[in-house]
């Protein structure tokens, strides 16, 4: 579910605190914001599992074994096996790696493109701004999943294309957000001062204004990580973008879906639960960060 969120600027306060102080602050932050802590914990565990865990599991994701196919969860195979006798746990762990990579690439791409365009639009205003805003209007008229689906179909079935497709559908949120920030920051003294000293426009835009308007966009990017996991998995579930049997969480759910009605629930329930867990982690963090930045503004 994507709801465009208008975030307010966080006031800029140069931090002179020492490293030790920062660590203490961070702990205090985690203690007061339980959801942030929970999100951090979830992601740490999941990422650890996907990096260290992969080494510990004594199977390979593509290793087939006909004699143990479709076995329910057991000690040897905590998430059971699929119809090729492959260990689902190890496939899930590899899937997490792939999905995380996709999610980070999506959020990064959308963040960079969105903030650059948004800054430009907000700084120059006028006709350029009008046109860019109408374009974002149009882009936002398409539900993001439909837009991503159409773009993937158009570009072809590869992982980079999935990243481009999903990122494109998120870009307008970043453009809107950054533009708003820049609009209000533009009139503040320091941009004016920089201009008087003779800085070129691009310097003012991207070196003076943008960094000060970045916080809400970064918070938004955290939320986007969660959405991207869901959208990429959804596309893969439909058979778009990612090639099975590349272990990818959405593909795993899709493959397992065939067995739901014959009772082999573990083939799709575990991979799907991990998708939800990942997205939940990112959303907990993103939501808390948004609350925190909003509070600081007050």
């Amino acid at each position, binding site marked *: 579910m994507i*709801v465009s969120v208008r975030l307010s600027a966080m006031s800029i306060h140069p931090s002179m605190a020492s490293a030790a102080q920062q660590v203490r602050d961070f702990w205090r932050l985690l203690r007061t914001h339980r959801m942030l802590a929970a999100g951090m914990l979830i992601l740490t565990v999941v990422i650890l599992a996907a990096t260290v865990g992969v080494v510990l599991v004594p199977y390979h994701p593509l290793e087939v074994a006909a004699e143990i196919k479709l076995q329910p969860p057991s000690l040897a195979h905590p998430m059971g096996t699929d119809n090729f006798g492959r260990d689902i746990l190890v496939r899930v762990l590899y899937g997490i790696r792939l999905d995380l990579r996709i999610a980070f690439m999506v959020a990064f791409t959308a963040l960079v493109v969105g903030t650059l365009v948004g800054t430009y639009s907000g700084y120059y205003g006028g006709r350029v701004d009008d046109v860019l805003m109408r374009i974002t*209007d*149009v882009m936002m008229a398409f*539900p993001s999943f439909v837009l991503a689906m159409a773009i993937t179909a158009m570009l072809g079935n590869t992982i980079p294309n999935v990243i481009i497709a999903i990122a494109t559908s998120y870009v307008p949120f970043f453009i809107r957000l950054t533009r708003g920030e820049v609009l209000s920051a533009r009139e503040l003294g320091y941009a004016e001062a920089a201009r008087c000293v003779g800085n070129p426009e691009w310097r003012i835009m991207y070196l003076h204004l943008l960094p000060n308007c970045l916080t809400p966009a970064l918070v938004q990017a955290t939320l986007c990580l969660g959405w991207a996991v869901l959208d990429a998995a959804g596309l893969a579930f439909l058979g778009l973008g990612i090639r099975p049997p590349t272990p990818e969480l959405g593909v795993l759910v899709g493959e397992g879906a065939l067995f739901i009605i014959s009772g082999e629930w573990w083939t799709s*329930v575990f991979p799907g639960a991990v998708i939800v867990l990942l997205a939940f982690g990112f959303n*907990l963090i993103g939501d808390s960060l948004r609350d925190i930045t909003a509070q600081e503004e007050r």
Partner: protein
Amino acid sequence: MVSLRRYVARRLLLGAVTLLGVVVAVFVLTSVLPGDLASLKLGPYATEEGLAAMRTELGTDRPVMVQFVDYVSKLVRGDMGRSWLTGQTVRQDMSQRLPATIELALAALVMALVVGHVLGILAAVRRDSLIDQAVRGFAILGASTAIFWLALVFIYVFYYRLDWAPAPVGRLDVGSERPPPVTRLYVVDSLLAGDWELFTSSLAHLALPALALGFIVTAPITKMVRAAMLDVLHSDFIRTARAIGVPYRSIVMRDGLRNALIPILTTIGIVFGYLMAGNVLVERIFAWPGIGQYAWQSLISKDFEALRGFILVVAVIYVLINLTIDLLYSVIDPRIRLG
């Protein structure tokens, strides 16, 4: 009232510009899809002349600008082309499938509105309590749930395990008569026809997909209701009302909710747009014969015109809903226009 009229005019103009943009975007998106429609239609044994004739008939051999003008002029006449998969015009296909999608979307929306309001108000009234924490957690969980997974889990639990729900194969049991079409929403039509059995059957088929979709969209609604209620409950006039002794419950239910209506309306707009489209996954899993299922079919068979029709319809619905809501609350709340 001059400013209202100007606001409406301006908003309508913007809406029209967006719609035009949507048409351009849809055309660009779908006309650069790889593949030759003519050879898809004619098959491998097509002769060169046959292909050329088919391209001429389809108009795909003309310059892109000419094709675009043609596309728009056909659109204006309500012609969205023909699906080669179903053999019908896209318009026929869409109008046959839209009621199924709308039925599902409405059911999910109603469910989400009810649950979302209850939870949102509870959370706002007891701010920072355990309930509030739980509701916020639930909202985040809802936003994090992969709908296709949830749908599968529902099927496993409610169909395979408990056998409460019918098999996930569409809107009605195989072979059962459809109700006489009035609204073409089966739940409503069967009631109108007084056919109780059909009503329960269509409701049972609707339940799981609507529940899955409803669960997902309850999250943003809950969140928005909570935030809007908090804003309102801390505003001056509520404080005044409390000060003069109006019972709290009545404040919350009457004044609070009424004033929270505007942000909630916005969310409903967004949610409805999502429901129309987020259906692709749910409709596929439940074999629900709506436009989402249609979109998926046309996507994998490169049925360009059908896909184009789907994207266009979804985007137009979305733009129109938002336009309506904007206009609606400019009437409700004059302050909007000044902003």
